[in-house]
């Protein structure tokens, strides 16, 4: 019963994993955002050498600026590096700036951060990656504004190799996939699988209690036989191993039957649920699920039997032999 419970629970989680994997197949995790996390957000970094190693990348600067004379706050950004790292190309030079579609800034404006700089809005930019309420400036403009010469605070890396990732992570960079659904689904299923592992606790407990009760009765019934075994020279370890082996065999048989019933129950639930409702609910009893359920059953059975078995090894053979009337 307990093994069946474990198998059924893990099969549900396994089914969710299968569904999530199917969903994930529709998305790719190819481009990453690399930042250096600091106490208040991404920090500026000066490792220009990073670009020399991770060539398929674009370096960027983002600054929180005040736009005069409008008096509004806005994000200004600049990118440079390998143009192939981004799906769109951005070109702006000198003190020119391009506005996102949702801004109405025109003509000459002043950007204020660590210092002030006058820029001219010469047009707009269109992007699927960057928001439409940012201002695109030249790298020089933003480095002057932020006071961080030759420094950047974000990096877009296209299809980094494992070596690239290791190189960046070794230098304190944090990598986020620019498309987060894959990570989100993975994380969601990991959470459910983690929750499913809690099923092992009640199931193992019940298995242990049952083993305790069963082996307790078994030792009580066969005390005379055990007394004879002890009398003819069997040591405590021999008696203990005999009783534990007995418990293991019973648990293993129970586990096997439970696994079979669990698989049947899982697909039963799946079939009933799918016929009652419009959607198809897939459950998946994988090999690992069956193995975990079986090991948990056998292990809990052994643990539960340990108490009465040890107790039996400690009794006197004379007392055990007195049980002759009852067991014969």
């Amino acid at each position: 019963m307990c093994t069946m419970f474990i198998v059924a629970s893990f099969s549900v989680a396994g089914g969710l994993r299968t569904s999530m994997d199917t969903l994930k197949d529709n998305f790719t995790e190819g481009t990453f955002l690399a930042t250096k996390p600091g106490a208040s957000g991404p920090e500026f970094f000066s490792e220009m050498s990073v670009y020399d190693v991770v060539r398929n990348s674009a370096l960027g600067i983002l600054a929180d600026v005040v736009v005069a004379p409008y008096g509004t706050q806005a994000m200004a950004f600049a990118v440079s590096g390998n143009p192939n790292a981004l799906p769109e190309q951005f070109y702006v030079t000198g003190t020119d700036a391009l506005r996102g579609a949702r801004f109405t800034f025109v003509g000459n404006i002043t950007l204020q951060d660590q210092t002030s700089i006058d820029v001219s809005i010469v047009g707009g930019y269109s992007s699927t990656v960057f928001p439409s309420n940012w201002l695109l400036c030249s790298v020089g403009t933003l480095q002057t504004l932020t006071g961080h010469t030759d420094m950047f605070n974000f990096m877009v890396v296209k299809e980094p190799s494992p070596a690239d990732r290791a190189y960046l992570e070794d230098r304190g960079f944090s990598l986020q996939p620019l498309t987060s659904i894959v990570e989100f689904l993975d994380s969601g299923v990991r959470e459910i699988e983690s929750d499913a592992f809690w099923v092992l606790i009640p199931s193992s407990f019940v298995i242990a209690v049952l083993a305790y009760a069963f082996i307790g009765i078994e030792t009580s019934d066969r005390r005379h036989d055990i007394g004879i075994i002890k009398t003819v020279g069997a040591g405590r370890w021999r008696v203990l191993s005999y009783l534990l082996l007995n418990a293991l065999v019973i648990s293993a048989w129970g586990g096997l039957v439970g696994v079979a019933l669990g698989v049947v129950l899982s697909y039963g639930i799946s079939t009933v649920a799918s016929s009652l409702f419009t959607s198809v609910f897939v459950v998946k009893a994988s090999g690992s699920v069956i193995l975990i359920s079986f090991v948990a059953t056998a292990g809990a059975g052994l643990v539960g039997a340990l108490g009465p078995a040890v107790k039996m090894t400690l009794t006197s053979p004379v007392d055990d032999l007195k049980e002759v009337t009852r067991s014969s």
Partner: protein
Amino acid sequence: MIVVALSMLIFTSTASILAGLQSAPSSFAAGESVVISESSAPTIFSSQVDMDIVSALDSWSHPVNLSPEVFAFSSWDGRSFVLRGVDLDRFNSTGPAFTRFAVLGDQSPKDESNAIIGARLLERLRITLPFTMSLVGSYSDRLDFVRIVGSFETHTSLDDELFVSLEVARHLSGMPADKASIIRASTIYQKELRELLSPGRARFVLYDLWQSKSIVALNDSIQVTVGLRNWGRATGNVTVTFSDIDGVRDRADVLLEGLASTTLRRNFSFNQPSDDQRIQVSLSGDFSLDLYAFFRVVEPFLVVSARSVAVLGSEIEVKVTDFRGEPVPNATVQFQAKSSFTDSSGRTAVNATQVGSSELTASYAGYAQGSVVVQVLDPASVVQAFLPRVSSLRVSPSSILQSEDAKGTVVVVNEGNLSGIFETNVYVDGTRYKTLSVSLGPLESVIETVFLTGQPVGGHVVQVGSYAESFYVTPWYADNSGLVRLILRYGGSTSVSSAGSVPIYQAAKISEGNVAVTLFSIGAISALLAGLAITAVFSKEVRESRRRLGVLKTIGAPREAIRRIVFPQALEAGLGGAAVGVALGIIIVDRLSSSGTFMLFGHGLRVDIDTTLMLLIMLSAVLISVFSAMASTMQAVRETTISSIRSLVEEPSGQVEVDDLLRDD
């Protein structure tokens, strides 16, 4: 008793966590609100509902607070979490209320690039505010940065989320600007809202009443079409009635499947002139609706447009149209005893051959004659100046549907001998609608056409120079326009879910029902296991006590006496253990729930042990204890005297139960 308590502890924990799993979807509803989402969306994340629903429901007759929200997800430092794009003002109107809300300095959480973070997510991400966080796209490569300027706590699953502006969430999720993932609605009229947006039974609405003409000639036919939609989810039938001012003209019995539409067409003709004839299309039932098509029934007549002043010997341009404003070709135009025929555009020209006022007439078979008076001047009396003026204005048709345009025909004439450019304004209801700029030669007249488009329902006055004409715009729907539009556009296209049934589980292609069946099965097995464990322990104790039971049976104790001894003892141990186990289980679950040990799609699994759940758990615990005690009792009762008495020698003396029994007997 310890085993019973432990079994019950585990059962309580399992049942509570399963209940938490069952109510996990309410994470996205956050409280008592109902959630409006796209019914065909496979997941709540891909749901897209129209923001127009918000404005339509804002004008609903029942008070409702609405919060459009956009879901996205992102990650930080390897931890995934849910982003919720909100309009904070609207969020505050629907709740849940913030039990704690702290914003740093003078920062506004409503700024588009600012964000506020839930208390539990703040703890999980281990960041210190203020914090600039990089966010990434949900389904495609996108990035954004937000300033997290404050934190909040609601004691709901929202505490696991990051609140950003609607615009930021839309960018990251790729949501169009006029859409939202869900609209949370807080109202006491939840049933009415569900009936309005997602009725389970057949419900009908009439829409888009169209008439082929606004002015109908006698015995001519007018075609009327009307749309009929079943915005409910079930098939049903309905009767649509067509009436005019004299009574019912026709009926249509229509059977329509759920969410299906059809168009009804009818032709009518009239033999009596009328200025206020109409076709009324009616739908009976609990959502009765009357749509009206207004029109005039007239004898056909001609309309003549020409300058009102001409100089002797000049050519006068004439345009002939019918009563609907359509040009009439081959119409006979007569002026000062001479005739001409209009061309395909209804135009012709006549010469002014006599000084004085003369009538210019137009005739055509089947139409009443049209006429206009033209004053012919002696050239010697014409002033040497540029003297433009508007000489006539006509608007046709005088009654149009809201989706139609009316045409204004303006005749401008120069009564002087010098050329020039004449500018004049066209006013609609006193507001300048258009400026006409007309180049005029000496004594020239020009006919200008102005299309009057986009005018709202009701009467309107067009004014040009000293001329004014009125026309009327009739609606395509009868009344309650917001409600009809809401039903037409969104009726049946959205799901209205209660807080606990938002289709988050559809993310895994499973429905709410599947989850309920699965969780119930697991819960039932968990109860069975607890019962099994308790029964096993009781059975062991009964077996160990069988020698005592043997004594009792030997001295003549009947089965009923055995039952009376064993059952209360087992029940006492069972209920005592159950009480301790349930109490401990609830405490443990509460700690697990608040610690965020159990997570589901970025939200901590919150187990709210409400009264119903509590009663269910306690009832189950009592039942498990009673059944286990009964099973043990039956086992004890069935023990035979012989098999029990075999254990007599080894039975330690002084057992309380035996002594008690002997004393009882």
